[in-house]
């Protein structure tokens, strides 16, 4: 699935973040968006997911305009910075939630996913008993199980200690490459972006009045 952002303008609490921001993410590509804090990286993900509306511009998926489409009809998954696990459901309930909403609940698929993320036997655990790393994996599994056309990762490794961060980065990287999902990843950590993605896009603030552009960097393979 090719994701295209055309001339997006966004604002946050009345402040214009950028105008005319365009970006194309090819099928199966993993793109990292980097930029300073407050540059609107997370807002851009929320616009792609449909949680926020752009002030201007269009979002296309395989050429189809999805700008006005409600969140649940976009087929775009998102892993939130703070996971947003459903506190009233256990681990299996969280992972199977999307399948249940789409009337495709299959306990065996939940089990497979638990094994894929390295947490077999964790299905009955309450989410408040999980460690930071375990919770991240569950959030990732919950989004991946519904086979999203595009997966959005909003600073998925923030707040983890260095050892766990590196281990999880490696695991996530493996899982994403195996799933061949189109991914947009937001981070302020250039090292994380380099390790995870095939392309890095820098959001640059041109001046304090907020006009901005994007610049593309291809890390060496």
């Amino acid at each position, binding site marked *: 699935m090719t994701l295209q952002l055309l001339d997006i303008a966004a604002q946050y*609490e009345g402040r214009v973040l950028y105008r005319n921001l365009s970006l194309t993410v090819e099928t199966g590509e993993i793109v990292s968006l980097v930029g300073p804090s407050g540059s609107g990286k997370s807002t851009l993900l*929320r616009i792609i*997911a*449909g*949680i926020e509306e752009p002030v201007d511009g269009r979002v296309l998926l395989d050429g189809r305009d999805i700008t006005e489409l*409600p*969140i*649940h009809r*976009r087929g*775009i*998954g*998102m892993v*939130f910075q*703070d996971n*947003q*696990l*459903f*506190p*009233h459901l256990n681990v299996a309930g969280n992972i199977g*939630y*999307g399948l249940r*909403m*789409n009337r495709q609940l299959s306990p065996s698929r939940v089990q497979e996913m638990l094994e894929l993320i390295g947490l077999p036997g964790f299905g009955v655990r*309450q*989410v*408040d008993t999980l460690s930071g790393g375990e919770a991240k994996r569950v959030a990732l599994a*919950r*989004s991946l199980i*519904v086979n*999203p056309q595009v997966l959005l990762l909003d600073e998925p490794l923030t707040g983890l200690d260095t050892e766990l961060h590196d281990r999880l980065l490696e695991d996530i990287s493996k899982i994403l490459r195996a799933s061949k999902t189109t991914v947009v990843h937001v981070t302020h950590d250039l090292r994380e972006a380099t390790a995870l993605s095939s392309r890095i896009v820098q959001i640059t603030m041109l001046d304090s009045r907020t006009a901005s552009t994007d610049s593309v960097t291809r890390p060496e393979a």
Partner: protein
Amino acid sequence: MSTPELNHPYRILAWPLLVAPMAFVVVFAIIPTAVLASRVESLDVVGDVIANRSIRQALWFSLWQSVLSAVVCLTVALPVTWVISRFDFPGRRLVRSLVTVPFLLPTVVVGVAFLAALPNSLDYSPVAVISAHAYFNVAVVVRIVGSRWESISMSLVPAAQTLGASPIRASLTITFAILSRTLLTATGLVALFSFTSFGVVRMLGGPSLSTIETEIYSRAVLIGDLDGAIVLAILQVIFLVILGMMLQRGASGAPRRTERLELRRKPLASHPMRVIIGGIIAVTTSGIIAPWWATLSRSRGGWGFIRKSEFRDALVVSLRTALTCAIVATVLGTCSALAASYGGKYHRGTAKLIGLPLTISAVVIGFGFLITFDEGALDFRSSWFITPLAHALIAMPLATIVVSQGARAIPRDVSAAAMTLGVARRRAWMTVDAPLLSKSVTSAAALSIAVSLGEFGASSFLSRRDSTTLPVLIAQELSRPGDLRTAHAYVVASLFIIVAVVVILGIEFGQGRSR
């Protein structure tokens, strides 16, 4: 494996602190209840009472009106709870304060206000009683459900939607699923308050509608059927203790705090949303204010009453009663709260027992006092302190809860840190713990004063000609013939409304400035 409990530096004080509150509860709650129970001579009496048609009607009305009151209250309160807990808009705190005022008003004042606001055709009807109960309890839903709703992350529903859930399904399977236990607790509490309502039913029920509370009163005071009143009081105590335990079990399943506590509320961005939310606020606030306005309108021509000795005497009695109640309830509540905070699980268990009066209705407390402190050395019925003590029994569990919250917020080792600097235990308490506790102790005293000023159930039994409190005066004036007498009742009710509005706005906005 649970973490072993560390000893508190003041643990040694825990049992001594419990002595006075325990003695108070035993003498003024347990003994009067036991005296009431001992007056039931046989089970045949219970059978006779239950077989009585008017008592069965009162039981049935108590049950169905309390369930319906809870449902109506939830329906009315949920939209404004959603608005207050999920959106930021100018005047949000003012709206929250306004919906809190009815709960702080004496029930008799709410009853009088509805008498003024509703058309005459609805006077003394179930609709009037249920509307007043819903009105009185909106704050319960807004505060209990609202604080839980506020703690649910704004991103959970969008997260569910990214997994394919429609907006309605996401709200049902996420927001309402998380809120379900809190909704149940709030509904249970509203039903409980409506079940034990006395002032509202006395004002709005008329001669035909009676609940268990008003039935106890009329049998004990008006008809002279003591056996019937006692059996009803005992059945009421048993029912409320069971219900209280069930509610406590429900509340003990505390919400899990896995989600980030994201208190940022949404600004009102889109125009349709502004219209919807503006509509909800307009309907709710006008519904809250309308009975106040009607009360003030009906008071016209009666304001000369505040210069009369009848009013002034009642005011002095009410203030004296409230101050005495506040001193007793705050001191005992603080002792109980500190014992629970400093001690181990046995101290906490004992402190919970001290909360027992909370599950006994004010009417039964007043009735128990009337029967118990009526003979020989215990004949205190004509003493001025009998009403403040009954009020203190009602206020003490609430004071305990307020001080407990303050005590729990004090770090366990903060006074130990002072002691490591060479300060003696007593001095460490005076210079560290006491200042940290002062705010919650003051709040407990203020709450006790509010409870006492508005108390009507126990006072109806204990007030005498020379010890009439203001809520009792309202009922007396309303029951006397003549428009001027009715206007007097509305004058006193208006004063309660004005004071409550000023106090709640002062607290809400005073806190805002001190932050």
